[in-house]
């Protein structure tokens, strides 16, 4: 406990149990660290993750051994895939019982091994301060990631005393992340950027994690180049700026995907060319030179061979690159890319997303999910923290809510964890008690961590839950519609859904339900007027709506479905 205080930790999410009782007793006798009691350990890790993503600081979790530890696994895998700094401190059975199949024993180090950046099994109390110092250093530096500290109960015995001191500095001989990019590579990159006629800047979650949005924005504005963000990178560049192409990839905009496919240069920053972006890697942006800035050397040329790999932090490298470009400002010819800009504008005009759908909502028989996101955007003036679960609603939110600031869009991109949204919103709301926090979810996802509504009451968290209710596992249904001749195998509930209004009320919150397009905006307004209350807005939407554009599997990035009948390829 003292080590956590000395590390400056103010907030911990957790759930007590036998093996962590000594730790919880120490928690009881102090005020510096606030503890939030969740209703399920998965919720604790997601909440800490939401806290970490919105603040940039490490999120901390206490769980007990056995089931407490295994319940934390989904949360750890989520944090690992999205590279977020989460520290899980798990109780373990007493040292002499390890390996004997004792009560509530799980090999937490073994179980979590493939989904953590690193882990520690504490062997003696004297090691705790150094291990905690190391854990925070590893979790928050380089490419961030989750760290597990497994502590046997006897090691936290309060009767055992030792000379405590918290280390000031840390040096791990095998772990020294490179911040600065190689100057020769920076020069090469600058030269390619200045010579390009059809450039695209493609930035990912790394820019947000590394607080490099300002540097990215300065660079883009200096060059006046088009820029696209990944699902994890939304908000790194202002979503309402003219240079912004929208999200790219599986459900990216037509213009972003077309630009990627047809460009002659890609500057990738803090992104990892994953399969939801590239589609078939063998057909990916064949006419483009590629520059890739990433703090993780293993991300470079992992999937797509790049011409100029640069190892370093996004913030430092972008700053270096901008300086290098400014030195050569005379060679920057903004007219050179004018035809390219015109082309992108045409693409947008042809098949861009319609951001004015809400205006015509009353002509529609049913509420469309896009209406809901646009109404949410309007009501929150684009300034809310928006968490999301996983599925169609997540994609609609990513497409139609414009994020102008980093750390505002909080979602499980890599692992795609249903159940993430509500607990993540708790972490965000606790970090920013006076800000508006909305959780965009669906009736499928929300039921995976619905128990946290109880936590929200205990800690007065006025989260606004926007439930896009289409009475089906929407994304599963969409794939079944498109690829399995509409055979909806186990993606609907046969009238077994709960009454979400009553359910929310039973948890002590406010529930609202809206079914008609003409009532949507007033319901949304009411939801956000109840400032001090958690409001669950259950929106009955058109159950047949699909998310478009959608990349066709196994093809290049220019092969997209644009609606149920229109595709871009023969």
């Amino acid at each position, binding site marked *: 406990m003292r080590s956590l205080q000395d590390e400056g930790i103010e907030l911990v999410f957790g759930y007590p149990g036998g093996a962590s009782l000594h730790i919880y007793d120490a928690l009881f006798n102090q005020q510096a660290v606030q503890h939030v009691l969740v209703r399920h350990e998965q919720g604790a890790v997601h909440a800490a993750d939401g806290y970490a993503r919105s603040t940039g600081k490490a999120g901390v979790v206490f769980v007990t051994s056995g089931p407490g530890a295994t319940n934390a696994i989904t949360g750890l895998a989520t944090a690992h895939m999205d590279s977020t700094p989460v520290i899980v401190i798990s109780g373990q059975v007493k040292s002499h019982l390890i390996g004997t199949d004792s009560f509530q024993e799980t090999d937490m180090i*073994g179980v979590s*091994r*493939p989904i953590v950046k690193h882990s520690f099994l504490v062997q003696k109390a004297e090691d705790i301060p150094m291990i905690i110092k190391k854990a925070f250093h590893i979790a928050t530096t380089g490419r961030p990631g989750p760290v597990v500290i497994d502590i046997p109960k006897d090691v936290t015995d309060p009767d055992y005393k030792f000379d405590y001191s918290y280390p000031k500095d840390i040096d791990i*001989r*095998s772990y020294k992340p490179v911040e600065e990019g190689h100057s020769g590579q920076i020069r090469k990159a600058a030269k390619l950027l200045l010579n390009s006629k059809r450039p695209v800047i493609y930035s990912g979650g790394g820019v947000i994690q590394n607080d490099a949005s300002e540097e990215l924005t300065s660079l883009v504005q200096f060059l006046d180049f088009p820029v696209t963000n990944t699902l994890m990178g939304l908000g790194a560049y202002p979503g309402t700026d003219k240079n912004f192409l929208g999200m790219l990839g599986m459900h990216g905009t037509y213009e972003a995907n077309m630009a990627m496919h047809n460009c002659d240069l890609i500057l990738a920053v803090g992104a990892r060319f994953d399969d939801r972006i590239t589609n078939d890697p063998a057909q990916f942006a064949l006419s483009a030179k590629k520059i890739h800035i990433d703090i993780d*050397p*293993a991300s470079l*040329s*992992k999937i797509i061979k790049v011409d100029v790999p640069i190892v370093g932090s996004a913030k430092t490298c972008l700053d270096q690159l901008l300086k290098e470009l400014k030195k050569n400002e005379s060679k920057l010819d903004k007219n050179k890319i004018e035809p390219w800009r015109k082309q992108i504008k045409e693409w947008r005009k042809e098949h861009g997303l319609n951001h004015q759908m809400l205006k015509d909502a009353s002509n529609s028989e049913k509420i469309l999910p896009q209406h809901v996101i646009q109404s949410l955007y309007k009501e929150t003036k684009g300034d809310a923290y928006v968490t999301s679960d996983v599925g169609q609603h997540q994609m609609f939110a990513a497409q139609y809510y414009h994020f102008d600031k980093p750390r505002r869009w909080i979602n499980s991109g890599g692992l795609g964890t249903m159940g993430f949204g509500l607990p993540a919103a708790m972490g965000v709301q606790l970090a920013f008690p006076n800000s508006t926090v909305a959780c965009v979810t669906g009736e499928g996802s929300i039921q995976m961590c619905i128990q946290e509504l109880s936590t929200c009451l205990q800690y007065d968290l006025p989260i606004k839950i926007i439930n896009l209710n289409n009475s089906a596992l929407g994304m599963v249904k969409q794939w079944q519609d498109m690829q399995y001749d509409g055979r909806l195998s186990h993606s609907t509930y046969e009238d077994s859904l709960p009454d979400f209004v009553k359910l929310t009320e039973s948890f002590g919150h406010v529930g609202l339900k809206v079914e008609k397009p003409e009532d949507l905006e007033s319901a949304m307004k009411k939801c956000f007027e109840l400032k001090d209350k958690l409001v669950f807005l259950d929106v009955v939407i058109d159950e047949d709506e699909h998310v478009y554009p959608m990349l066709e599997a196994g093809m290049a990035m220019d092969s997209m479905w644009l609606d149920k009948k229109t595709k871009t390829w023969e």
Partner: protein
Amino acid sequence: MKRVIALLMENQPGALSRVVGLFSQRGYNIESLIVAPTEDPSLSRLTMTTEGDTQVVEQITKQLNKLIDVVKVLDLSLEAHVGRELLLIKMEFSEKAEAEVSNLGGQVLFKDDNLLNAEFVGTSEELDEIVTSLAKLNPMEVVRTGLSGISSTAKTLTI
């Protein structure tokens, strides 16, 4: 293509499982693996052989380097290097068998009326041939350590 990767890692519990786990997790194949503490007791040295093209092996070495417990990695296949492994064998004792062992450059380590143990040291290819040659004597058991290697250039795997 067969590749030889050597690395230094922290000599502590869990380190080896992270290295081995990485291979199964990312679908890489380990052909052989040999590990022992170094003269600096805080470090262990591990040599492994694997199959893969340059891009795959480059990705393997990067992923290994990412592990916090791994201090340094060297792809010996990219360097001039020497590699040796040890083979131990158990056969029924006969004068013919004993003669064959010394004929093939091996050393008899133990013998009695019934049994004979011998050792051979060589490259993996040499040991493959020895195993083939000894097959006609119907060995009861053959054990190989896997390849250990060291570079023949100025590049050293030390800290």
